[in-house]
């Protein structure tokens, strides 16, 4: 591509539009997966970070040039999310944070209202806030207003690998929100990541689909390729598709005929 296509978030300019989650992957596999994904942003649950032991700490396995985005997994309300974000920052994890407030342990669906509250507080404190949400336009506008750096709507429940079930609502966010839209959760296959990018999503975050693959590093590479292909397909502006072969002007061709 001749023109620069970079993703700007929180003062950073990213080349890769694939974010990777770490929660389900053995630490030892992280370096290989991160390299194969070519990712520049990796999310880590603070609840898993074991500061006492470098060997147990996922952070030890993430290369220096990759942005660590701690997430607030385990938070049940805005107050807990804010505390986790502050602890992560104090522990040297930088100022990016993915807000996850989950009050439903069965489907792990995000609590949008609490997420807005946490975002408002953390933005004030100088965090680069990326909230994980149900794809809801009204909430996304509130987050935009609150100063979020991006919105991260789900495609389907976490870990479900069910793909872009919320497609219509994701499309609305992509059209209406003036922030990067990063599709998080539910993406199970590279083709679904490509579809998300073709739709105009700015990036995708993948965890389970890579972690549960037979060969996680190979799958990470496949996602990288799919994200790139989907992005280029979006930028190229796909031609209209049709179920039928198109006759040149079946309905209005008569206009070009000599009138009779």
């Amino acid at each position, binding site marked *: 591509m001749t023109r620069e296509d970079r993703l700007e978030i929180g003062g950073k300019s990213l080349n890769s539009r694939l974010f990777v989650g770490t*929660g389900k992957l053995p630490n030892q596999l992280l370096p290989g997966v991160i390299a194969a994904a070519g990712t520049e942003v990796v999310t880590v649950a603070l*609840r898993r970070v074991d500061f006492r032991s470098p060997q*147990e700490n996922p952070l030890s396995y993430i290369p220096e040039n990759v942005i660590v985005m701690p997430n607030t997994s385990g938070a049940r309300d805005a107050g807990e999310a804010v505390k986790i974000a502050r602890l992560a920052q104090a522990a040297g994890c930088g100022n990016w944070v993915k807000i996850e407030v989950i009050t439903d*342990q*069965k489907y792990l669906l995000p609590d949008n209202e609490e997420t807005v509250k946490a975002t408002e507080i953390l933005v004030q404190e100088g965090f680069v806030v990326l909230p994980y949400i149900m794809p809801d336009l009204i909430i996304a506008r509130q987050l935009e207003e609150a100063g979020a750096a991006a919105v991260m709507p789900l495609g389907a429940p976490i870990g479900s690998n069910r793909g872009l079930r919320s497609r219509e609502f994701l499309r609305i966010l992509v059209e209406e929100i003036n922030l990067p839209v990063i599709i998080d959760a539910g993406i199970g296959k590279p083709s679904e990541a490509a579809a998300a990018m073709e739709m105009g999503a700015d990036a995708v975050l993948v965890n389970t689909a890579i972690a*549960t693959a037979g060969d996680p590093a190979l799958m990470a590479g496949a996602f990288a390729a799919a994200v790139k292909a989907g992005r280029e397909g979006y930028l190229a502006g796909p031609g209209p598709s049709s179920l039928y072969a198109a006759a040149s002007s079946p309905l209005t061709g008569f206009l070009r005929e000599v009138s009779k």
Partner: protein
Amino acid sequence: MSFWQELQGYEGFDFDGFWRRTGPEDVRRVLAGENRQPLDFLTLLTPAAAGYLEEMAGLAQDITRRNFGNVILLYTPLYLANHCVNHCRYCSFNARQQIERRRLSMAEIREEAGAIAGLGFQDLLVLTGESRSVTPLSYLEEALDVLQGYFSAIGLEIYPLATEEYRRLLKAGADYLTIYQEVYNRKVYAYMHPRGPKRNYLFRLEAPERAAAAGMRGVTIGALLGLDDWRREAFFTGLHVAYLQRKFPQVEVGVSVPRVCPNAGGFIPPVSVNDPELTQIILAFRLFLPRAGISVSTRERPWLRNHLLRLGVTRISAASVTAVGGHARPENGTEQFKPADGRTVEEIKAAITACGYQPVYKDWHRLW
């Protein structure tokens, strides 16, 4: 309205007829379906389903990996005291056993905590017997205050409390509650618990919901397998988990599958639960309760635990010492049961890694 009402709905249910009527085609239908309902779960506990363990295992492994990843959480128990006023027939610590009774002082708790944390553990399960005079709430509060400095998550496995009391212990630093009903069959329960406050079946049955209402992050329940017909007991346990998940969606509800172990009392369990049966129970739990954590303790042998790791288990205990104060001073006291898995933490971690999983010590970060 509590779980008791739901449980009563199965009074008079013809379980034996259900075992007889359920055939392979019913099991296949349940395996092909989604959003499994209580009777689907019961179908997976039937003798007919025993012929489908491999199919169940494949589904269970897939569900577990998607929901929990390739991760196994390690925890270990700490016995603070073995004083007990109950007469549970199956327990080495029951009031009638002539054993040395001990309660750790705060200094000893510090010593034990240091030894356990030194092994790498961050998730601790604190146990006592039932004695409101020797281990009152104030003692537990003091112990939690000490332990908080060493661990990122603390679970309690203690006598059942009132909601307000659970709230006090939460404030003192507890995160999770583990409480086993032991046996859901009320008649067998009465027989197994001839004396002591534990005779109060309902107070125990409703303890998990009181703890959840008080604000505990997680609640783990279970039936002690071997006290009564395991199919029914596993069924009621699963229903209880589903009930708690429904009523308290913000709480992490887990289930444990303890089998009665050889112990000092020489108790002979009335029902045997063999390895394929235990496996069937775990698989049925996983297919009915995709999001529930499943724990397997050192009551089980290394060989079995290594294999169960891949079938739905999410938490295992390690380096368990079931005597009071046995970490810092191994020569001490009577064990509640003899752990069948005596491997070191490093050996267990190596076995988990060899299965392609990541052993983790830490799955919560203390916020206060």
